[in-house]
């Protein structure tokens, strides 16, 4: 746990101890550890002098802050109406087949999490998805197989 303590200290030193810096601190932890562990949140509470409930309450509000460990790669498929009209369901089916998980689940070994998300702002190029920070548009099952194949072969 010494590592978490160090990381939190580093971030709190960088951004400041005031409450207004809570989101940047949580996001900093998330970037390093891929989620917010209970230990990390408790450490933030301690170092920023806030109650642990406040930290968890804030973190759990936001869809890009995870409070439990899941996949290294988070696949977020846009489920807004225009992406749905452009064939989102087929994209989800392809991903489910390839990863052998359902939406909301994580593959064994915690490599991929398959999620649906609200509008990604790529409505003119749907169906669209994000894999971590990368975005992919005008998806077809064939295109998805190619993209995911590259991730699976660990190109990244």
């Amino acid at each position, binding site marked *: 746990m010494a590592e978490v303590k160090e990381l939190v200290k580093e971030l709190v030193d960088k951004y400041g101890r005031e*409450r207004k810096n809570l*989101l940047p601190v949580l996001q900093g932890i998330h970037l390093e550890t891929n989620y917010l562990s209970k230990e990390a949140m408790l450490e933030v509470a301690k170092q920023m002098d806030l109650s642990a409930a406040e930290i968890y309450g*804030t973190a759990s*509000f936001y869809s890009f802050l995870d409070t439990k460990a899941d996949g290294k790669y988070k696949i977020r498929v846009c489920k807004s*109406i225009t992406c749905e009209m452009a064939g989102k369901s087929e994209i989800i089916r392809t991903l489910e087949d390839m990863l052998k998980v359902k939406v909301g689940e994580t593959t064994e070994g915690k490599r991929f999490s398959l999620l649906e*998300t609200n509008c990604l*702002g790529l*409505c003119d190029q749907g169906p669209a998805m994000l894999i971590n*920070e990368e975005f992919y548009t005008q998806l077809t099952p064939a295109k998805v197989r190619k993209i995911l194949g590259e991730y699976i072969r660990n190109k990244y």
Partner: protein
Amino acid sequence: MSNIKLRKVDVIFSPYSVAPYEILKNAMKRSKDEVVQELIDSGLRGRGGAGFPTGLKWKFAKQQESDQKYVICNADEGEPGTFKDRKLLVEVPRKVISGMAICAWAVGASKGYIYLRREYRYLVSHIEEELELYHKFAKEAGLDFKIEIFMGAGAYICGEETALIESMEGRRGEPRNKPPFPIKNGYLGKPTVVNNVETFASATMVCRMGADEYKKLGTDDQRGSKLFSISGDSPKKGVHELELGMSLEDFANEFGDGDTKAVQVGGVAGFCIPKKQFKTTIIGEGNTTGGSTMIFNSTRSMYNVLHNYLDFFAEESCGQCTPCRVGTQQLLKGIEAVKSKKKPPEYLDQLVKLAETMRLTSKCGLGQSVTNSFSSIVKNFREEMIY
């Protein structure tokens, strides 16, 4: 009601002026009151969706006495069907930053933030490069206004300005009661101007063109040009800049696929207009819009459309006030019950009343506007809800 012919214009995406921040520099040579008055005269309204007159907002912020004021650019573009702010930040970020700086200079703010939605994190390095250029200019020009990016963390409701501020203060993005408005009591309790990305870019263009030239575009009710994010059943999907004041009929003829059954104007928080009302609907009149327009052709089930919207609202409701938290879920369950014949068709009328109640009793725009799309779809496509 007056409408004009549909006309594509090239104001917001027009090329930059010769030197970077020339418009800002010129604005700073004038008096602050003069620049704010120019904005008021231009008739520019907020481009995020609520449509508050931009110049007035700046004027009120300018009148506040405070040791610190803030200017925030709302780039939490989360309304389904909207993607113009992304394009603006990619293609003409300097106009957005200029608008922020002109605002800050006029109202007396020394600190600014671009609240960028988490989904757009890939834009950070690009915007930071632009900010570097801006800060260099500001230093030379002696303008004391610094801008930082603040990353959102994924929440539709944070596009509501007080929820955005809560989020920046390190809390859950739950909207505040208004008044007080942010121009009085905003970020960290200080006077704060929150404007949409497109509003700042448009403000820059008002300063470049002058109010007289700018307001030649549009109608008495709505001045200027506006970016429309067009998606759905359209062969011309994308961002189009149009002069304000055209009828939906012209719009559907231009952007539809010839088989348009309905257009959702203003995102899911806006209205769903059926074909029979295209002629009499002027886009933006009585239904101010952020520019999201989703086009549906006759192959689309309006039940599926509404179901998708309600699923969205139920998920994105912040949960703080009961009408919205419970109402969104009950509307969703309600249309499912009617569709599966567990409830009679008349139950839809009760649901419309519930949606109306949400308009009256919800704390913020999210819960208040659910009834816009709900009632317009249920009333105009009732058979599709039942069978």
